[in-house]
């Protein structure tokens, strides 16, 4: 399995305030990595740095083997066609319909015929549960959950190898979040996706992640499979995972492991 993302000795500073100090992180192909940390620990900032939206004070961020803060224009464009990002609030283009939002990345390639673009966009919308009737609505006329699903369809439009998710299930009702999790899971299996996500939702976290990276004390204090990470004696980890909510979510994880054991 090759390394998709490699972060080396990354420093982030806002004025005098140091957010990340000598942070190291690695994501391998096919993993679903969750970034976990208290609020203000710089999860979203790290995500934005991985995407090249913000420049770290020091250090290197390599995605697909390329340093994204030093890559030239052409290779940066190529890189941006290989990943997809789901923003926390969707970030749909409010001037375009849901369908056009999803079709936009495909049209941007300028070579695909319009009927194929339309069919492919409708398929992507269908995959996230948006009917053709809703596809013609403007984002302002969609509910919060629908905006998020359209945004996921847009992130998946160009069949990315790498998918970034910022709080994918925040603001969704439990039923929707479950179907969201199932969708990402099946896409992951089928499209050999690598996923990096930031989430506070422990249910989503345990249901999806194959690996968890814990951000605390300005760096990644632990990476590993969910059961490995929970076992660590660090106070933040204990507090985060083994509170009341954490325990409930963990039961789900145990059930899942039992199932896979039976499967063997």
């Amino acid at each position, binding site marked *: 399995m090759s390394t998709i993302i490699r972060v080396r000795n990354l420093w982030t500073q806002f004025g005098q305030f140091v957010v990340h100090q000598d942070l190291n992180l690695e994501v391998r192909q096919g993993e679903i990595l969750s970034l976990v940390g208290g609020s203000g620990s710089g999860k979203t900032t790290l995500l934005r740095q991985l995407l090249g939206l913000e420049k770290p004070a020091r250090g290197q961020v390599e995605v697909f083997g390329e340093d994204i803060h030093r890559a030239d224009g052409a290779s940066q464009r190529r890189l941006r066609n290989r990943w997809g990002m789901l923003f926390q609030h969707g970030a749909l283009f409010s001037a375009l319909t849901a369908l056009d939002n999803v079709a936009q990345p495909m049209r941007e390639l300028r*070579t695909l015929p319009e009927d194929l673009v339309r069919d492919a966009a409708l398929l992507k919308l269908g995959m996230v549960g948006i009917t053709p009737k809703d596809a013609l609505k403007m984002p302002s006329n969609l509910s919060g959950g629908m905006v998020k699903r359209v945004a996921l369809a847009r992130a998946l439009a160009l069949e990315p190898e790498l998918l970034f998710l910022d709080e994918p299930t925040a603001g969704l009702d439990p039923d929707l979040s479950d179907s969201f999790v199932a969708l990402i899971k099946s896409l992951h299996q089928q499209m050999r996706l690598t996923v990096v996500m930031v989430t506070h939702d422990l249910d989503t976290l345990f249901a999806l992640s194959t690996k968890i990276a814990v951000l605390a004390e300005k760096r990644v204090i632990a990476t590993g499979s969910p059961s490995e990470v929970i076992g660590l004696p660090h106070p933040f980890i204990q507090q985060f995972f083994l509170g009341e909510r954490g325990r409930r979510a963990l039961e789900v994880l145990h059930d899942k492991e039992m199932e896979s054991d039976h499967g063997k």
Partner: protein
Amino acid sequence: MTIAAAGSWQVHALAQPGRLKSLSAVLGRAPRDGSTEWDLSGIAELDHIGAQLFWNAWGKTRPRRLALAPEHEEVFRRIEQAGELALPAEDPRRWRIAEQANQALRTLSGHLLGFVVLIGQLALDLGTFALRPLRGPWKEISSNIYHIGYQALAITALVGFLIGVVLSYLSAQQLHTFGGDIYLVNILGMSIVRELGPLLAAILVAGRSGSAITAQLGVMRVTEELDAMLVMGMSHGFRLIMPRVLALAIAMPLLVVWTDAVALIGGMAAANLELGLSPSYFLRELPAAVPLPNYWIGLGKGVVFGALIALVACHFGLRIKPNTESLGQGTTLSVVTAITAVIIADAVFAIVFAGVGFL
């Protein structure tokens, strides 16, 4: 006939220039009667867009004879499951022009009604403010005066000075041919104090602060701050609109005085260069050339224009819908309407005060 596909059928491979055209030519030639044998087992990588390309070539059904690698089965199953992906047809529109005209009429009456309501609300808020001045939004008023008045001093001075220079040169040349050099003071004084000073300041403030007010309120709508205020029991009229109207009504006359002064200095400088009229002569003649009522008219125009700009800007700002397009449109409309309203008000002033302030 057998069609065999191999290699990578992913979107980035397909999107290479020219590739899709040759592929669709081949796919389009295949008969759709089921006699063709499709061998896709050689495909290394396939994604939904590549699969959709096949699916469309098959006439949106699965061909009878199809060889497919097991790992690609899922992609086609998904497309098959999605079924007929047809957009709902738009309902045919008759009476389109009538409908548009009706819509335009309704929008216009909506604006007019909204503006009247805004003015009424402002009157009520002013009443509340007058009854309990201590509980008024003093901080908002003073910060708005700072932003709208003080920070506009530099730009109004620059534009006023240059207009003064231009006007002075233009009139000096014409007056010189008639030998009426000394009347330059009358022309400059009257036109700047009565007309150009207030108008220039108003147009600059409309462009500068009118757009800012509209955009500010619009973004507050987008971020739901306006709703948050209502929920907490803070009325938009009292906390947002009245302070801005008052601030502009106070700042504009001051800006008018400032613009007048700088424009006259510009005209004076140009007159000194072009006609040799000394500044001291200019200043000595000015009170006689421009009677006092003109200054009052100028100040009055400042107050009215300021209040108008603020009201128009608030009106459009509050009507912005939470999306980016509406924000852009609303800001543009606000500035255009504010400037138009100012010029209409100026015309009204010209008619009403036709007999006042002339020698």
